[in-house]
């Protein structure tokens, strides 16, 4: 992952976005991809090469948990759900994000005149 600078940039952000989507309810990997894509009006295109490693990482850190479930189309899929820890983590990341984007915004608004 480290060989792709864009992934690096996404690293922290992707985790936060995944947590956010799961806050809406348990979902499988494909559903998360779809939601991120549609929710951002096709701006965010998450590659599977990033999504699944992120899911496994978050699961290992016990921010999310997973189990095999059946979809409405009677297919077997791995569903991911937010844990209490994950909820807390999401709140922290949101706050960080808000602070960060505010800071960046302030910098960008500096004018030379």
């Amino acid at each position, binding site marked *: 992952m480290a060989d792709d600078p864009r992934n690096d940039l996404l690293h922290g952000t992707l985790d936060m976005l995944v947590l956010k989507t799961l806050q809406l309810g348990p979902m499988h*990997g494909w559903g998360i991809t779809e939601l991120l894509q549609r929710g951002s009006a096709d701006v965010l295109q998450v590659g599977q*090469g990033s999504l*699944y490693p992120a899911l*496994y990482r978050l699961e*290992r850190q016990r921010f999310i948990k997973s189990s095999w479930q059946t979809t409405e189309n009677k297919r077997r899929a791995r569903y991911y759900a937010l844990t209490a820890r994950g909820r807390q983590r999401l709140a922290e990341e949101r706050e960080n994000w808000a602070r960060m984007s505010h800071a960046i915004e302030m910098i960008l608004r500096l004018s030379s005149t």
Partner: protein
Amino acid sequence: MRFLDTLAEAAARLGGWLVRQERESRLTDEMRFHVDMQAEALVRGGAEPSEARRRALVAFGGRERWRDAARDEYRAQFFDRLGQDVRYGVRSLLHARVYTAAAIATLALGIGATTAIFSVVDAVLLRPLPYADPNGLVMLWEHHMSDVGDAHNVTGPANFLDWREEARSFSAMAAFVGTRVTVAAAGGDPVSEQSRYANAALLPMLGVKPFIGRFYTEAEDTPGAPRVGVLDYGFWQRRFGGRRDIVGATARINGNDVTIVGVLPKNFAFFEPAAVWLPMRFSNADRTAGGRYLRVLARLKPGVSWQQADREMKMIARRRAVDMPQLDANWTALASPLRGDLVGTSRTPLMVLFGAVGFLLLIACANVANLMLARAGDRRREMAVRVALGAAPRRIVAQMLTESLMLAVSGAALGVLGAWAGTRVLGRMAPPALDTAAVSGIGIDGRVLVFVICVAVATGIAFGLAPALQSARRDPKDALSEGGRGGSGGTRRAGRLRAALVVVEIALAVVLLAGAGLMVRSLTDLRRVPLGFNAEHVLTAGVVLHGAAYNNDTTAVGFFEQAEQRLASLPGVRAVGAISWLPLSGLRAASSFTVVGQPVPPLGQEPVGDFRAITPGYFAAMGIPIEDGRGLESTDRRGGAEVAVISHTLARTFWPNGSPVGHALTYEWAGWHTARIVGVAGDVHHDGPRTEPYMEIYLPLEQFPYSGMTFVVRTSGDPVAVAAPLRAALRNIDPGQAVADVKPMTDFVRASVGDTRLDTVLFAAFGVIGLVLAMIGIYGVGAYTVQQRRHEFGIRMALGAQRGSVLSMAIRRGLVLAGVGLAVGVVGALSLTHLMGTLLFGVKPNDPVTFVWVAVALAAVAALSAWVPAWRATRLDPVAALRSD
């Protein structure tokens, strides 16, 4: 260590494989679902199904690439990690060789010694006796008013028969006495075996069942009944090859035909080993017989306590003292629980050793804790680097845990070996009374082993984890920037803890060393006690004559005289004598006497002397000096004037200024006798160096006939070389007589201080181990201090500080700790060593010489342990020391 590595690798592989199977199937399933969904979405968007699938796969991207990435995240699983931790642990422990060796040795010693000692204490003191309802069994004894303490004296048949009829506290009572008997089996040399006469009630009282056959009955335990006997299992195996048809067969025992009616079960033991059990066969004459030689076992009636029985025995004794004053004046009787008498004098040494080993375990734990703290201190930087590189705190803790467990397992494995060896050695310390029954059953006690391992391992983990947790939680930036200078609150606290641990270790080591020192001094003093004879180059051989030919005193004495002449003519023999009860054999015959011409003391308060029959050659053969008058001579014959040689102590007691030669003694031994004193012999410690010499009365065998004598043969060379010719010569005179205990006199001497020697060795071992552990502790603290202040020392030296002043700064802490520990330890030792009481000989528990030596030794060792790291500090290159941070 390579083996460990391989093992860890194998475990990791197996675990990894299992995890991998599950992981791969999950990855595959999840990927397939994703691609299917994508393809369906494309189909909904109007694509051809096959085309949609192809595009979905492409979109999914380099399949293997994301798989790898996913695996990396996923694989961080238990087994993979354990393998990693173990490999890393092995490397890291190998890197710190001294630390590893110290920790493993500490654990092994602590676990091994504690388990071994506790197992023995448990078997001897705590476990129930191997008899039916052992709490209901008591021993009945007599006690002479003049004896100090609560000495347990054997009783005589007259008193025993009276007790058995009159005492109401008991449901059964039996007397027994040990004796040597000669057993002649068909077609073999006769053998002399330690055996036992006992009443028929004894074996049933102990709840023992015959292995084969039966035990003898009350009817067979009467004079005139057909002679029967019971064999010990071991003797039956050894002598009769375990033949079952022995039951009903006849054996020739002491010249009589005895029918063997049964065999005792394997591993049965009761006081001394006994090869043959024979009925007592008390007769009416025994109701008035004098002499005390019987031990008595009784079973309490249900609901009667041994204290109640004891009170009844004392009442009976008061009545007997009035009814039979010539026998029982000034005697009382008592009952005591069987266990106390079986354990005997082993109790104190075992309890003291138990205490000592507890201390050793404490030292070991303190040391493990100390080592763990020191190591954690050393590794703070390493941990900080790992945290900075992204290691999760949990990961670091797991690593430390793995290392602690590896140390603990290695130490425990060695400890089990040590415990096994220790129980072998200590089994020999147990009293012979419990010999086969309890002691052969002494194994390593599983519960104890588990307990001790848990204590040691828990210590290691607790003191290894605490600092690890701390360093894992800390901001690595602090730890890294603080560098070698140290000084955060956490490390200072750990430093204080370590200092306290070292003080405790030293104090405990001082107590152990003081105990060891006192034991060594006792042993030296014991060895230095002149026993009163010269044991070098002396061979002993015991013969107890049996058979109708020797029922007459003249023929018995004739045998010994003839034998003495034959032995004297053997090559390499310089002198030969014989004595009825050999010094240090544990046998004696005491009786009261009076001095003719001195006031007669009241009945029951006559002086008691130790009577021994000897041949004229005895004093010369044993090297016992004649201090006054003459020894006994071949002219002192039966029917002639009765004579006696008395010992120095007896002479000084009654004739403090003059010579006793020409005076006379009266004594009762198979009738009243008056013997003229013809000489004074040097004192002999007949019961070993711990017992003061008795008032001894030596009588000529001619005038005091006795059928069991021990030859003492003084040789010019190795006494053992004479053993075979000696046996041959005796067999030549009468092939029907058994010869026992053919061994050098020095064996008896060695055995007489055997217990003390073993106690000393154990204590010395504990002391030394404690000292070594304390040394490691002091060294560790010193090395740590130097490590912490390296930067400071560097600056000081760069600014021109003398080596000496740096040395003293670096050494001070170690010495201060040693001083505090020493002071605490000396106070502790002074209040504890008195518990060693009876273990000691010749030294007081607060012996100043010992304490000074202990203090000096410990101070020296402490100084050395503190000096080594301090000296290293002075070798520091100031430039390197400054740059290292």
